[in-house]
């Protein structure tokens, strides 16, 4: 029993920490902090890049969609003007025919 007590006392005896322990702990802490800061920046940059890519794709898609709709509208304008031109030509022909008939 005494022997066990002795061993325990010996084991629980206050011992001064090695002089390098504080430096090691502080070093490790700063390395972890730096790694964390780097990670945060990486995440921010990645998020910004994704946002820029999504916004760019949106702008491009919108531009292409407007271009497509504009082309469709342009073709419809041509069709409308062709019909208008046809109607005006027909009117001119009718007027010319009437004029000829009146002269005769």
């Amino acid at each position: 029993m005494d022997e066990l007590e002795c061993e325990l006392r010996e084991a629980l005896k206050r011992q001064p920490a090695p002089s390098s322990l504080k430096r090691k702990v502080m070093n490790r802490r700063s390395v972890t902090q730096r790694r964390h800061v780097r990670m945060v920046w990486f995440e921010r940059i990645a998020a910004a890049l994704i946002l820029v890519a999504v916004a760019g794709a949106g702008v491009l898609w919108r531009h292409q969609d407007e271009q497509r709709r504009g082309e469709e509208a342009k073709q419809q304008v041509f069709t409308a003007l062709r019909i208008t031109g046809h109607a005006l030509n027909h009117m001119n022909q009718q007027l010319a025919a009437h004029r000829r008939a009146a002269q005769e």
Partner: protein
Amino acid sequence: MTNRIMAFVLGAAVLAAAASAQDSQLPVPSPVEKQLAACASNVDEVTLSKNMLALASEVMNTNGDGKDEAAIHHLIEGLDGIYVREYDFDKEAQYSMEEIEQLRKYYETSEWSPVVRERDRKTGESTDIMVKLVNGKSRGMFILDVEPREVDIVLILGPVSMEDLGTLKGLAFLGMMSGTHHTGPDNARKKDGDQ
């Protein structure tokens, strides 16, 4: 905060109402048009609001090599809308004169002044041209052209004149298109810019 949201919603509603008011200048198709479309072998329908015309102007080539498109760009600039219908028929007398009269009355309102009224009793052909005058200036043109096998309705809203439309004669590619537009009954085309 609630007030701001209410103001935003109100603002959006006002803008939406203004936008729809802009489009509402274009007429609602008359019931006769449906009857004509049902009998026609080929139908061309074009409805372009101010926004669609602006979109079309944006893609037009107005540089030196696109003279025709530049002329059209100039023609449609400032227009409020274009409403055009073309009905082609396989045979003559597929529509009645009553239908044409109904169509004429549908568009003939007090704000339109007749400019040309042409009738050929032998062939049944007729052309009506009316202009909408606001403070002595032309703010629209309506053409109803009736041929034995074709009925054309043209409604152009906005500042347009016969001189402007006279430039259409010089646009070669419109003439080229006219040779290709006739399609069979199965290929009846319907074009509507606002759909």
